[in-house]
């Protein structure tokens, strides 16, 4: 129950966590040359281990490797017993609790609450792609760093 309380705290403080993560993401994307020099492959295991600890504590993170927290009000959709990543099922109880685990608040009810406090809260309306199971257990942070750094590098490459 302790973990569950932390998870609820994170959703209540979604705005704070959002600004923290935005700063964190800016740094890790900017450090892409460093990650490249060390080698993304070599970083994978240690970074994933840290990510598992930190996000495990804050969000009950399941390490799907394709983090959607910024789009889901800091409420992890992989904690939905049906793993729904695009909104709640039809079984949400009248009190906002889960159909499968009646003692738990619906992950998506919390997601909506969390998103309403966030600057980029409307991202909850973005459609999430189906889970890529090959990414399971991998670091989402490193993937974001590599992809965003790559996307930033590309337009420059085209201009030159």
């Amino acid at each position, binding site marked *: 129950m302790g973990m569950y309380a932390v998870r609820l705290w994170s959703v209540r403080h979604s705005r704070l966590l959002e600004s923290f993560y935005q700063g964190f993401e800016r740094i890790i994307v900017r450090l892409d040359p460093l990650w490249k020099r060390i080698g993304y492959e070599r970083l994978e295991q240690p970074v994933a281990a840290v990510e598992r600890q930190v996000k495990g504590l804050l969000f009950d993170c399941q390490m799907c490797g394709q983090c959607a927290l910024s789009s889901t009000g800091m409420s992890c959709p992989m904690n939905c017993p049906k793993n729904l990543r695009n909104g709640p099922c039809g079984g949400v109880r009248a009190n906002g609790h889960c159909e499968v685990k009646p003692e738990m608040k619906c992950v998506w009810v919390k997601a909506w609450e969390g998103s309403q406090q966030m600057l980029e809260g409307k991202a909850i309306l973005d459609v999430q792609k*189906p*889970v*890529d*199971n*090959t*990414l399971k257990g991998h670091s989402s942070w490193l993937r974001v760093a590599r992809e965003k750094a790559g996307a930033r590098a590309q337009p420059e490459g085209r201009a030159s």
Partner: protein
Amino acid sequence: MTRHALTADRTATRARGRLEAVLRRGDFALTAETSPPDAGAPAPVLARGGCLKGLADAVNVTDGAGARAHMSALAAAALLARDGIEPVLQFTMRDRNRLALQGDILGAAALGIPNILCLHGDDVATGDQPEAKPVYDIDSRELMRTARRMRDEGTFPSGRPIEPRPALFIGAADRPTDPKPGWKPDALLAKIDAGADFVQTQYCFDMDLLRRYLARLADHGVLERLFVIVGIGPIASAKSARWMNENLFGVQIPEEIVRRLDGARDQQAEGRRICVELLQELSEIDGVGGAHLMAPRQEEAIAEVIADSGLLSRRSAA
């Protein structure tokens, strides 16, 4: 020629399909393989597998071969059955959980499909959508156990009754190996215990190895409890024989066969001739219940081999 007496399934009072009937009366059974097409209409299913009608006793229908999506095996098998071709419906554990598998077992029986073959399935990583979720809720042995229970006890694993029960002839896969001293067919015995009535093997082109393998199976009482259908096929060329040796797990095509293919003017025709000879040799080996002919997307070559072998005309009248 004596084949084995039948004790595998004592509860059956009569054969559930042509394949089982042929095996039980001791005739040499002929099965073939077809793969469902990437199509949303029935015609391509019959265009591929239709040529086997009347020739193969039963035709295996692959399930998501190569870890790719194709027309569902159940639907393709039902289309073949409707057209008078008896299917062996292959079940892999990769794409469905136990509930879906149990539902499809009943669906298969209801659609007139008397045979199933329980397999593990190719890994999703080898297919064209590696991001898909591999299910493997239960393993193939558990599916056999489940199918047998549904058939013999008329219940789901939970105990909930099924009425009427599905009539099923249950199959497993096997791979003949050169038995080392002391080797026991433990895996095969476990499959029999799980409910296998028959096995269809991986390609085996080495008849001497097969004889040694069967002798060991006989030592352990396997052949009285299980029909063994040996996998062979028309090899398209020497090149494809070498490819199979390097890439197909557990397949060893003897050098002599590769040399024959290499020296032939028409390698494809030679491959079919070799297959006919192997078929005839297989039909003389004690303990062999039949042959399983595989040749991806070459169902017509299989049909030709069966016709040329003359094995059907040698059968005792049913």
